[in-house]
């Protein structure tokens, strides 16, 4: 098992160095991440993605989850998880088609039990929104009877990242609460490049950088009850609330010019300040565990994007519409039989989710339907619940009508969960 973890972490280091390098190569995600601070992310784990749910009502003792802080007080294990996402986008619009791909580090989280099975501390670093687009176009401007032909490229990266420290408190066997304040960093960068076919006009790239910070808060609630429909069953009802996050953001544009005889980076226009906000989010879900080998969940989250602000672009802000996410999925755990069969060493998940989207472009809502499945491997060590979770998703987003883009997304998500007894003195060897 150690060798597997070693292999995985070697691969992950390899992944992460490539992530940094690939951003410079212009690989991209969804073109719809151009709006506002980027496309909102759910930050659910790989197994939650595989079940098509958000993770509001579902927890796994072998892996921490970011979705509902109320889960952090449950369990005796220290848990560390890192999530990695790869997505390939097959895209088309009314004129052409193509493909993009994006590999990124999703989130990192560590949960430590301050009081065994009662109070837990979570430290997390994760993206809340992400911009990742890279779009070319050929343009012509008529001037004085002649055409000026040029190529335009807009490449955007960045988004809102949260550093979060929160507490989960298991009040009793039925009720758990969680609170997670976070410090949010808004960093957006867009390069708008113009390449002129007429050599008389200088090629130019303008970098637009937006920065801001804020504090945000979210809360979680978990209600749990056993033995409702059978003596082994468990039903969990979760709820989450994320308060709006308001940024006083600044925007600066720079480009490179020849000033005198030197090439210098100069500021274009004057630096601007504007209000940017992320919306109120509310979520709820029910998970049912009829026995130790099977569970199913149904969840819902609404995000009030129509009230979100993006002061640097009124057109972006006016595109925001309320977002609703629905998820339904199940999980099967044959490994709990401790069978020697190969296929019994995994847990299996499958689900479906529907996202109404947070933007309406050209009177079309950008909806996404995800079909997902996954599997996980649990450590055979009884003192550890470390696991790998791998999910595969296939998504249908957008449309080619109204000059929009239709995306077919194939995603692979990997969660590496290290779950060990830490800070506890062993009484027996």
């Amino acid at each position, binding site marked *: 098992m150690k060798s597997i973890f070693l292999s995985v972490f070697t691969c992950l280091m390899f992944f992460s160095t490539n992530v940094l390098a690939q951003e410079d190569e212009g690989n991209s995600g969804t073109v719809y991440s151009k709006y506002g601070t980027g496309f909102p992310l759910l930050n659910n784990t790989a197994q939650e993605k595989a079940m098509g749910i958000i993770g509001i009502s579902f927890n796994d003792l072998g892996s921490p989850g970011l979705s509902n802080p109320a889960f952090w007080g449950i369990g005796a294990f220290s848990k560390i998880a890192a999530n990695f996402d*790869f997505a390939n986008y097959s895209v088309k619009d009314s004129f052409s088609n193509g493909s993009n791909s994006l590999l990124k580090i999703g989130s990192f989280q560590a949960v430590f039990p301050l009081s065994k099975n009662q109070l837990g501390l979570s430290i997390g670093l994760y993206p809340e929104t992400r911009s990742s687009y890279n779009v070319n176009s050929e343009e012509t401007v008529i001037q004085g009877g002649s055409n000026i032909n040029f190529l335009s490229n807009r490449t955007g990266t960045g988004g809102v990242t949260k550093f979060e420290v929160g507490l989960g408190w298991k009040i009793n066997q039925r009720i758990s609460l969680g609170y997670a304040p976070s410090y949010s960093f808004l960093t957006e960068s867009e390069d708008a490049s113009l390449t002129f076919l007429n050599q008389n006009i200088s090629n130019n790239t303008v970098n637009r950088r937006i920065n801001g910070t804020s504090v945000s808060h979210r809360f979680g609630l978990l209600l749990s009850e056993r033995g409702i429909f059978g003596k082994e069953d468990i039903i969990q009802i979760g709820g989450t609330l994320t308060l709006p996050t308001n940024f006083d953001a600044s925007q600066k544009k720079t480009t490179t010019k020849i000033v005198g005889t030197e090439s210098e980076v100069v500021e*274009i226009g004057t630096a601007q300040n504007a209000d940017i906000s992320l919306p109120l989010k509310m979520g709820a879900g029910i998970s049912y565990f009829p026995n130790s080998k099977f569970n199913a969940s149904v969840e819902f989250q609404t995000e009030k994007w129509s009230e979100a602000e993006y002061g640097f672009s009124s057109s972006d802000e006016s595109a925001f519409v309320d977002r609703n996410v629905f998820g339904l999925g199940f999980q099967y755990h044959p490994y709990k039989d401790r069978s020697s069969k190969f296929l019994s060493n995994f847990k299996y998940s499958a689900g479906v989710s529907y996202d109404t989207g947070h933007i309406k472009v050209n009177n079309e809502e950008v909806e996404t339907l995800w079909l997902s499945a996954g599997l996980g491997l649990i450590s055979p060590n009884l003192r550890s619940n470390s696991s790998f979770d791998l999910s595969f998703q296939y998504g249908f987003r957008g449309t080619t009508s109204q000059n929009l883009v239709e995306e077919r997304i194939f995603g692979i998500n990997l969660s590496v969960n290290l779950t060990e007894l830490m800070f506890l003195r062993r009484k027996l060897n």
Partner: protein
Amino acid sequence: MQKSISKVAFTWRLILSVLVVSSLISCENSNTVGGGVVDSAGIRIDTVSVPDFQQNGSDIFSGKLQSLPIGEYNDPLYGSSRSIAYFKPSLGPARDASLSLLSDFILKLQINNNLHYGDTSQVANYSVYKVTERWRGNTISSTDNISFDTSELLGSFSYQNEDSVSITLSQSLLEEYAEYVNNDSSNVDSLYNFEFFGIAIVPDNVSAQIIYPNIIGSEFLTIRRSTQDSVSINLQDYAFTLDRQNTPMFPNRLYLNNYLESFYSINFETVANNLSNENILRAELVLYEDADQISTSLPQNHIRPETRFLDLKFASESELRYDLQFTTTDFVGVLDTTDNTFRFNVTNHINNYIFGSPDERELYLNINPNGGIFNSTILFDNTSTAAMRPKLILTIEE
């Protein structure tokens, strides 16, 4: 159980390897999909008026240029120009040969026969006189007056479209020149410089054409009559003076010529200050030539060298004449015959104002003196119709 775990470990390694490899090979470049969602980076074209050009006048250094205008022509558009050329032979090779008085003394002029200015159907007549005062090609100006003795004709010639002309100079000039050539005294060079002033080639009053001898290929010759042996004598000095009459006035026009009778200055500071922090990709100064007036002003068989380039340059006020004539231009405007415009790319100058503080601010618009060939042009000014006024066309990123 242990065997099964090994299989699982192998499976996971395989999955991870496939994941890593597929992620590396699947990275693709951007594409053109998404133009309806992500607006293109755009440009806009702004046209702004430019400040008034301020007219200036001067003259040029007219010695040691590549071509020497000789002749007189009354241009119906630009007025009368009368140009006299001055030549002085060197003492050089002739001294070694001990110049014989039984020789012919000849000035051979190589003519740029595609650069005439005036009536090509007429024969132009020229007379050669002895210069009576000292002059130096390095310091002479086109408006200087250099005296010559018209009481004694040293030679004459007529010209109509030949490639070259050979002018036989008088025996008296040969004898005077030979006194210095055959003088063995140590101070002969000084005597020659201070006492022998060369010749002037003067157009007759009825001449209606200016010709341009090319210094490369022009020379003095002595040819011994008995043997026909010839000795080439280099030009030690050469220059011209220009007398202008009926100088024109052009209302609503900018009038430029390359003997600096009229040139202009302009300052873009005010324009640039109104463009604070704009991302200017190209700033093009456009000047419209009054091509109709220029082309219709010449009678049949009359020709005038075309002006195809204008200079826009920085110059120091203390060395203005020299800078305008001899320093490299900062911005060149090439005539676009499709719309009769001169276009100058002044992008860096405008950006220097917007993002820095330019060391040089005053720009001068003139026609390059072009080695002595006379060029003139007229351009529409700020009082002309709006479409033809000088303008700055700005390509701005937005």
